[in-house]
């Protein structure tokens, strides 16, 4: 089967966004399923094909997914906000799922000197899992800050776009992020011992 994006997908996503905006929760589920599939697909493509010479930016994936999934002939600001809200959360989920799988599947007994194995890298999967659980914690305390972080780092939105999406001022977004980042870094350190 092909993963080429059919026109129907675009219509569907645009339609779902509209439905969701009107309060249809089922629409969000469907939307999530479509966007998730597309993001995974895009991520795989990027990673396997387009990597060379570029610095990977998850945010680029989300933007590409938006362009591909949302009808660009009639883009609305609302659609865009909603889409990025969903997509950045999904991106987080995709990456963390992968990191968890990788951690679980980590085999013991690599025959190398201990210091080499340790000093070389401290495990990006572990860091991401720690970030994820810190974010989950943050969401309980201050959901808006968690959302701001997701939009910023997993969705790649600008401060201005985040402000629009969260319906707050740009200054508030900056303050949210600064506080959240310091707090997350502190929490990650607690969780993995390294910041």
């Amino acid at each position, binding site marked *: *089967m*092909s*993963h*080429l994006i059919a026109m129907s997908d675009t219509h569907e996503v645009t339609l779902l966004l509209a439905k969701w905006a009107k309060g249809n929760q089922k629409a969000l589920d469907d939307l999530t399923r479509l966007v998730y599939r597309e993001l995974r*697909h*895009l*991520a*795989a*493509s*990027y*990673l*396997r*094909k*387009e*990597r*060379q*010479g570029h*610095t*990977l*930016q*998850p945010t680029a994936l989300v933007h590409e997914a938006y362009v591909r999934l949302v009808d660009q002939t009639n883009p609305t600001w609302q659609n865009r906000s909603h889409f990025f809200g969903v997509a950045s959360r999904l991106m987080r989920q*995709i*990456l*963390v799922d*992968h*990191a968890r799988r*990788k951690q679980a599947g980590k085999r013991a007994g*690599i025959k*190398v000197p201990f210091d*080499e*194995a340790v000093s*070389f*890298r401290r*495990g*990006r*999967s572990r*860091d*991401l899992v*720690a*970030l994820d659980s810190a974010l989950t914690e943050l969401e309980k*305390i*201050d959901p808006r800050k968690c959302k701001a*972080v997701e939009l910023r*780092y*997993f969705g790649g939105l600008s401060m201005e776009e985040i402000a629009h999406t969260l319906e707050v001022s740009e200054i508030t977004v900056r*303050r949210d*992020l*600064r*506080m959240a*980042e*310091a*707090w*997350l*870094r*502190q929490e*990650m*350190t607690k969780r993995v011992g390294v*910041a």
Partner: protein
Amino acid sequence: MNPERWAQIEELFHRATDCAPGERCAFLDKACGNDAELRREVEALLSFDANASASVGGTVRGGLEDAGFPLTGEIISHYRILDGLGGGGMGLVYRAEDIKLGRKVALKFLPEESVKDPAALGRFEREARSASALEHPNICPIYEFGEHEGQPFLVMQLLEGQTLRELIAAAGPGKPPLELKNLLDLAIQTLDGVDAAHQKGIIHRDIKPANVFVTHEGQAKILDFGLAKLASLWSAVDDRESQPLRRSVEPVVAHENLPVSTPDMLLSRTGVAMGTAGYMSPEQVRGEKLDQRTDLFSFGLVLYELATGKRAFEGDTGPELQEAILTKEPNPAHKVNPAVPEKLAQILQRALEKDREKRYQSASDMRSDLEALRLEIAPRYRPRWRALAAAGVVVLSIASAAYWFAMRSVKSSAALPAIKLRQLTSNSSENGVGDGAISPDGKYLAYMEREKIRLKHIETGETRKIPQPANLDTSREGFGGIGPWFPDGTKFLAASYPRALHAQEMTSQGSSIWIVSVSGGPPHRIRDEAYLDSISPDGSLISFETHKGKFLDREIWVMGPEGEHARKVFEVDENNMVFGVGWSKDGKRVVFQRQDGPNPADSYFVSGDINGGPLTKIVAPFAPESMQSGLWLPDNRLIYALNEPGFKVTTCNLFEIRMNPQLTEFIGEPRRLTNFAELCAKLQNTTADGKQVVLHEWRPHSNVYVSELQADGTRASAPSRLTLDESWNHPLAWSVDSKTVLFSSDRAGVDQVFKQSIGAVDPESLLTFRKNENITGACISPDGSWLIYMVVLDKGGPTNKIMGVGVTPADPTAKNDLMRLPMTGGPPQMVLTASIEEWPRCARSPSDLCAIAERSADSKQLVFTAFDAVKGRGRELARSNVDPTTYYHWDLSPDGTRIALLKNRDNRIEILSLIGGVEQEVVAKGWDFLKSVRWTANGKGLFVSGYGERGAAMLHLDLQGNAQLLWEHPSVVNIYGVPSPDGRHLAMRGWNVDSSLWLMENF
């Protein structure tokens, strides 16, 4: 945490971050009061504030990277995986470090599906091993095979650069990604690699843009040789995880031994076909048995795409594309991209013949055609990939080649033989090759590189340095000549020449002949004071020239193969010269050239018996003074390079003419062999069968170099190259603010004046001349508002008119126009017309003096006259008695009070005072002769150029004659200097020569 507490912490956090770091404590003391817990929490947060954003962002990016490259950070076998490089049809590629050998490598993982058939994997491994064992510079080597948890991987050389696929993608749709010169160079390199593999019986089967890598240095490397067979093993697998973003399919290659699906089935299963399938040959599409010609078709497609920016065959679906490959004729490349020469289009058409019998039959055939094209249309092109823009530093390491290039119309080549030319060396202009000679069997090339002798195996490219002999006195002499070979192919001759300051006339004086053995050991000297000439057909006699007369050598001698039994065979008196010996087949008679007096027009051929007897004078049916070099072939043919009337001296073409066996007359008419437009190649030697001839191609260009001066100009930094192109660039002047260098360049085919700031990359054009006009010197008016320059009409002489060839005094009857151009823009206007010697010169404000030098009517005096940029000619300033036959260099001091005057090739500089002061003579201590003179910015010293042991030299000379060497440049051409008014920089002209050796066949 309760919301109030959180809000409280956040509030304090933000307010604390607003405080200056030193004030935070005081603020927190006050704000937190007795709540120690609150204070602790805020302080902790503050301690994580720095770099928090980077930390979170980096974690997310790292996670993504891990998701794509799961092995990152692991250690597999003795490889430490550093990060992901990319991936394609073959699987993921990682950058890794070989812990054992400490080198960086690339690890390429093959998809797990590929190992389902161990036997197939074994076959693949064997083939890939043999391919990697080719060790060809244009094939990416495979170091090792390994397996990690059932996943096979191979360890390859880590390359830095990009694949053609990326190059094409970066150019954008429909745009050719490469300039023609780079395209040809890359194509030739790639075909070199393909040819090497084909010769070993290895077919690539999957040549495509993604499999041709171009390193940062511009070297082509073919990837995945021998791997295509493997690809067919898993091509049918539908990998849902890695569905491509763009419509493309993974390698889909038919394999004759596999009972798997035909390409057709594969294509229909994957549904789309724009990837590798797009580079399949018709026989591949049909699933037929493949031979090496499939690679040529595929490479033809790659080349077509590079040349036009478009695919030769297109189709929205696999079957459509296949249909196109099988039935459609591609649009001729030159119709798609008009910049493509028709000849390249023809080459492409032949590569893309559907019937492989009509196609190129070998990679070397295709390569030869491309090489001939390269030489024909752009003889001086060589790859230059690096963004030279990055170079504020010295760019000496970069191969630079193309120079001024005004395309002349080339005569019809209809009647010419289809000569094949093959480039044997590709050295940079800073490391040019000298003479070269091919071994009698055509296997080896002996050549000179920076006075060192090299021996290259022509097929493998393997090159050996011949050790320097202990008795070579390198302070006095150096190797400069190579060849000929002895008939048995075990030895050849080399010549050392004296390191004389101005060894522009090569004679036996100080020269020696050496024997070099292929089997090893340093060369040994067999004869001093001898100029190497030739070896008799049976190898029993070596001829040489000796006993320099008034001009060149006047005697021809022969000696045995070890230098024994030397005897004189011909001689002329001291006003005449003899050179260039050719032998009859039986070795009994020789023909040589004789020139009577200094004029090359008075030269002719003479033949005679080696053991004495009457001599025969032979008049050649061509102008002997136009002959640049000649080579006698074993069958009494003479091939000669002729500078034809109407062409620059840097252009010559090859002809051949036959002699009778007794060597007493030329038979028939000369036959033209080449039609080069802008190239002169020197004939070197030939193989025993006379079918291959080595040519030495020589292409000079010049650049502006800038040094930083210290200690009043007595010291200088290593110069950096300001102009980065490959034309003739000459520094002219500096802007009055000392920030910008003005220079002339003919990069666009005509002379132009540019200005360019130090450290800048792009120059700005100030002035463009007409095609027949040359700028020959310039200065800036004292107030900085005018560029004053001299222009002459081109009379067809050499392009390099500035400071290089000025050796005869100004002709009082020939006038130059002196012009002025407003520095702020506007049209140029005439200042005056005069017969000007050297350059116009101007002092610096507050002086307002400018001056020119003219000859008196009898040429015995140089008359200095003031002029003003606007008012024109002024009063006479001074006169000096000069040699009427010699050119003079001079400069006006920055304060306008003195003139420094240097006779060409002398080391004494006269200082004339314009205000009645004492005249003075400065003699450069330790330097024999000088070529140019400029005052330093403070007027207390002089910058003079001359020649040192290692080439052209720039010196600071104080007025007592003490010289400080500032720069030595390995060239034989003057590097005059132009100091900046603030005394901080010196712009100089550096001369670069690109040279390479070529093999000519099929003439």
